[in-house]
């Protein structure tokens, strides 16, 4: 095979047995890879009713055919598992260099099953793989673990590891690769911890085989030149300022979530947005493998109580640990971000859970006798302390480790958790951004923005602008973008480059460039329409898993704050998210029943029966 390595590594932690198996060429063609392979194997092998922390759950780490190639942003992999946070599927996506290294070791995916009796790590050295004891790494931070692994295996090994948060089964623990990149969402790191797997270290050999190297080179060059042409006068804002520049887009539209989504404008936004980060703390921009954009941030806080060095913050972190907690101290939230990276926590759910706790406290639903400290809006010190306590489940951290919905439910106010299906929202208030509301409510993993991100066309002008306040036009756009994101995540590409250069630049985003790259790499001879249908297949397969896990139409919903309480201030003042008006037409155009189930006709059409 080309593009694909044609090999899956299966690791049974219970028996310690490691086997290589062939990737079925038809499955590869029908699901592409990455997120597609993730749901394919999850549906086949993991009972949706199983205990997420038990031996029957599996952790599927899958790269795409473009991962590890010279394709622009061919850097990504996807971790798929049953989530302990939501009880549904989660698939979480990360870049850096680990995924490319995995491909270069000759593997498309690793399927990790069972539970090890003792802490172990997986060492993949080209075609050889072994499990090694990891007692000496247990309890160590992600950075310490990365250092130790590279000294024990190979200096050029790339790693994906859990920190103390994953070991303590914090329900939103991340898997950190290359030290500071995160497969962050919905507890993939907690599943890894429950399996007693501390890390995966990998060293590649050789390159990813290409079906038509000359054609691949030509297509690659074409899109890299397009990027150069567009950025010749000024570098992309994401390289200059990182994703935290996106605050401009959300604040100016009045959808920058503030104090647990009580409003969409934050008075302290200029203290924490990308330009301020650049001016005060940026050391350098850091690209992932094969990326021309370089949005990653290496930062340093030179002095003061939050002195430190690390990577971040990204936009989502600036929202979650910043405005959503009322924190306008960039040093404090950056320090909390460093802690999340080193302890292995999802910054979005960490911030959102603290924001929820702060609101519960401020309203008197949570007492100081339970929290052990005052939880006031804007308290940067509390942010850093609570992050540390959560990772090891110390004191009140043990409640935070269960996530915002369980915390708010325990306090008798589940409506104060800003979640869909139990997963905390990203940094966009759907009241002033209608499409995002539909995307949160229908995302197979819950409140994620990365399952068809309408912020591109609603806020950021990419590829063209659509009105964020209208809802009648959003169902077909959201469905189209959800399917597109399945394709991007399956191919092994990053959304950031793809939506601007590898799709037709209108709202229907036909994946022309992605198809060209896939064909040159794999020789599969896809048409763009076929690739679109694969996206639809993946999305529907994830939906089927969600339904099999017991979710129904009534779970496609948002908190009453979003659908009932009008936005109090700012440009979106007076608005609520018109979710109900959008859902019925959305189901209909997806070929789903009024109950949100894919119809028999649709399933047959997609080959899912």
């Amino acid at each position, binding site marked *: 095979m080309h593009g694909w390595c044609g090999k899956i590594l299966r690791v049974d932690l219970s028996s310690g047995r490691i086997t290589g198996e062939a990737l079925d060429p038809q499955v590869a063609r029908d699901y592409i890879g990455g997120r597609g392979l993730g749901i394919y194997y999850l549906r086949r092998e993991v009972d949706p009713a199983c205990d997420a922390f038990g031996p029957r759950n599996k952790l599927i780490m899958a790269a795409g055919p473009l991962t590890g190639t010279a394709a622009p942003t061919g850097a990504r992999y996807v971790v798929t598992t049953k989530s302990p946070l939501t009880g549904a599927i989660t698939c979480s996506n990360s870049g850096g260099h680990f995924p490319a290294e995995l491909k270069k070791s000759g593997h498309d995916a690793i399927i990790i099953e069972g539970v090890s009796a003792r802490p172990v790590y997986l060492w993949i050295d080209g075609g050889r793989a072994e499990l090694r004891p990891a007692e000496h790494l247990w309890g160590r931070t992600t950075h310490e673990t990365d250092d130790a692994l590279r000294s024990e295996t190979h200096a050029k090994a790339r790693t994906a590891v859990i920190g103390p948060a994953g070991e303590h089964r914090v329900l939103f623990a991340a898997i950190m690769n290359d030290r500071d990149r995160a497969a962050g969402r919905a507890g993939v790191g907690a599943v890894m911890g429950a399996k007693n797997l501390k890390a995966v270290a990998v060293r590649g050999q050789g390159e990813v085989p290409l079906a038509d190297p000359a054609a691949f080179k030509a297509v690659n060059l074409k899109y890299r030149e397009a990027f150069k042409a567009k950025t010749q006068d000024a570098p992309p804002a994401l390289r200059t300022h990182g994703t935290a520049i996106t605050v*401009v887009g959300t604040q100016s539209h009045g959808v920058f979530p503030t104090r647990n989504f009580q409003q969409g404008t934050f008075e302290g936004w*200029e203290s924490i947005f990308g330009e301020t980060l650049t001016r005060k703390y940026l050391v350098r921009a850091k690209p992932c493998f094969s990326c021309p954009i370089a949005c990653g941030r290496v930062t340093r806080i030179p002095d003061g109580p939050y002195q430190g060095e690390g990577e971040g913050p990204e936009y989502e972190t600036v929202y979650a640990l910043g405005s959503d907690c009322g924190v306008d101290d960039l040093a404090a939230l950056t320090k909390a971000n460093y802690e999340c990276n080193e302890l292995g926590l999802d910054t979005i759910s960490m911030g959102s859970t603290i924001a929820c706790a702060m609101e519960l406290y401020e309203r008197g639903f949570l007492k100081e006798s339970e929290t052990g400290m005052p939880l006031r809006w804007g308290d940067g010190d509390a942010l850093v302390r609570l992050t540390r306590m959560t990772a090891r489940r110390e004191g009140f951290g043990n409640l935070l480790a269960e996530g915002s919905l369980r915390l708010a439910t325990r306090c008798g106010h589940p409506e104060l958790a800003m979640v869909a299906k139990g997963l905390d929202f990203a940094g966009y208030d759907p009241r002033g951004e209608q499409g995002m509301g539909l995307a949160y409510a229908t995302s197979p993993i819950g409140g994620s923005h990365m399952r068809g991100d309408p912020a591109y066309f609603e806020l950021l002008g990419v590829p063209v602008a659509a009105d964020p306040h209208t809802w009648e036009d959003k169902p077909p756009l959201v469905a189209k973008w959800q399917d597109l994101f399945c394709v991007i995540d399956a191919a092994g590409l990053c959304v950031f480059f793809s939506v601007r250069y590898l799709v037709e630049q209108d709202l229907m985003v036909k994946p022309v460039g992605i198809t060209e790259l896939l064909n040159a790499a794999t020789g599969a001879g896809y048409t763009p329409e076929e690739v679109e249908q694969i996206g639809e297949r993946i999305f529907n397969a994830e939906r089927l898993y969600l339904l099999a896990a017991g979710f129904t139409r009534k779970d496609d919903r948002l908190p009453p704050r979003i659908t009932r309480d009008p936005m109090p201030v700012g440009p979106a003042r007076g608005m609520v998210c018109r979710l109900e008006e959008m859902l019925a037409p959305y189901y209909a155009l997806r070929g789903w029943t009024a109950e949100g189930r894919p119809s028999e006709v649709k399933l047959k059409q997609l080959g899912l029966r």
Partner: protein
Amino acid sequence: MKVTVRTFAHLRDYAPAGQGAAEVILADGATVADLLAALRIPKTVEAVMLVNGRRADAATRLNSGDEATLFPPMEGG
């Protein structure tokens, strides 16, 4: 009439005095296109345009006291 304009990222290069927020005097009945011209932003430079927090385009009419926001299209957050 006077409008306030805020520019971000590399569009800041076109801001009067290089500041984030600036007041610009325009003729009555001016549009966003007139504002862009007053700031000497070339037509080839892409910008997302808002007036008072609502999406606008070059043809959008401005009123005295309006607040305009200009930033480059962004690849993501």
